[in-house]
């Protein structure tokens, strides 16, 4: 059994990389590696996870320079010459070690109008939404986001412009813009337009490249740009 050389970020904004030697196993995930370090080598290591199967989105970290779900990333796929470098997600304040403070990430969902606003009550009949309608298909393309923050960490514009809402919040807004039951369309378009919103996206596509659920926030943001332009030209913005 060979050993894996793992360097792990220790500290908060200021800190250093600490080296650990972790035994290799078949089908070992990066989360297995972090868990081994915390349980066998250094119980003071702080990290975050919950489901271990790619459903909760809480275990994302920077693995050899790229943001990933550690639970769904096999060591074989990312280790270079038997080495791993693990850091917290980029673009978020570090609480300690591999744990980030995700409040700014989720606050931006709120700012982007990420909350569904409906008009019907429980006494109303179900809304009829055709699954093959263009709007529903556009919403479906982005609906599986679990809010892991990988796209947000991958985005250079978030890094350069602290006010930018980011790919996940804008993708969420796009799914609601395409929901015919939603009643806050114009208010949401106002919330996501502008230099801190969809117009800041440079279409680098890092979010699309890194999204573990294969959503394309870039396409969603492009859709928002079109919807905002249309609303503006119609005088509704």
């Amino acid at each position: 059994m060979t050993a894996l050389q793992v360097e792990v970020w220790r500290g908060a904004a200021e800190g250093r990389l600490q080296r650990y030697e972790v035994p290799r196993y078949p089908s070992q995930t990066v989360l297995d590696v972090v868990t081994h370090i915390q349980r066998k080598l250094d119980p003071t290591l702080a990290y975050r996870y919950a489901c271990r199967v790619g459903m909760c989105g809480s275990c994302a970290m920077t693995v050899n320079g790229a943001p990933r779900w550690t639970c769904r990333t096999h060591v074989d796929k990312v280790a270079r010459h038997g080495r791993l470098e693990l850091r917290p997600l980029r673009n978020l304040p570090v609480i300690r070690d591999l744990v980030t403070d995700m409040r700014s990430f989720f606050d931006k969902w709120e700012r982007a109008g990420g909350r569904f606003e409906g008009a019907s009550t429980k006494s109303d009949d179900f809304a009829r939404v055709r699954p093959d309608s263009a709007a529903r298909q556009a919403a479906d393309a982005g609906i599986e986001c679990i809010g892991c923050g990988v796209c947000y960490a991958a985005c250079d514009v978030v890094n350069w412009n602290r006010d930018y809402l980011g790919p996940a919040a804008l993708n969420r807004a796009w799914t609601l813009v395409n929901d015919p039951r939603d009643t806050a369309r114009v208010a949401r378009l106002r919330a996501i337009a502008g230099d801190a919103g969809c117009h800041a996206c440079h279409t680098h596509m890092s979010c699309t490249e890194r999204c573990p659920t294969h959503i394309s926030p870039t396409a969603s943001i492009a859709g928002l740009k079109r919807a905002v332009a249309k609303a503006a030209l119609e005088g509704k913005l």
Partner: protein
Amino acid sequence: MSTRSDTALWIAQRASAAVLALCVTVHLVTIIYAVRGGLTAAEIFSRTRGNVGWLAFYAVFALAVAVHAPIGLRPVLTEWLGWRGRSRDWAALAFGIVLAGMGLRAISVLFA
């Protein structure tokens, strides 16, 4: 800047990009055509002097640049230098006026 004005700038930049796509294509094709067998200043002047068509074409070209470039400069100033707010927008506007002035001055020399 407000949501509405940010959106208006974005639309202006996209519209000017569409104009520039056409202008750059015509400009490049003209260059390739014009330099066959060498090119002299006299030859260029003989084509442009008093020609209202070229005057209008290059005036549109220069103004499209003057609209397009400053709008793109705003995020560059913010993302690279951290420059935000009204002063950044005035700086971008001044850059656009300089571009328009230099472009139209060059065209006026070619036409007159």
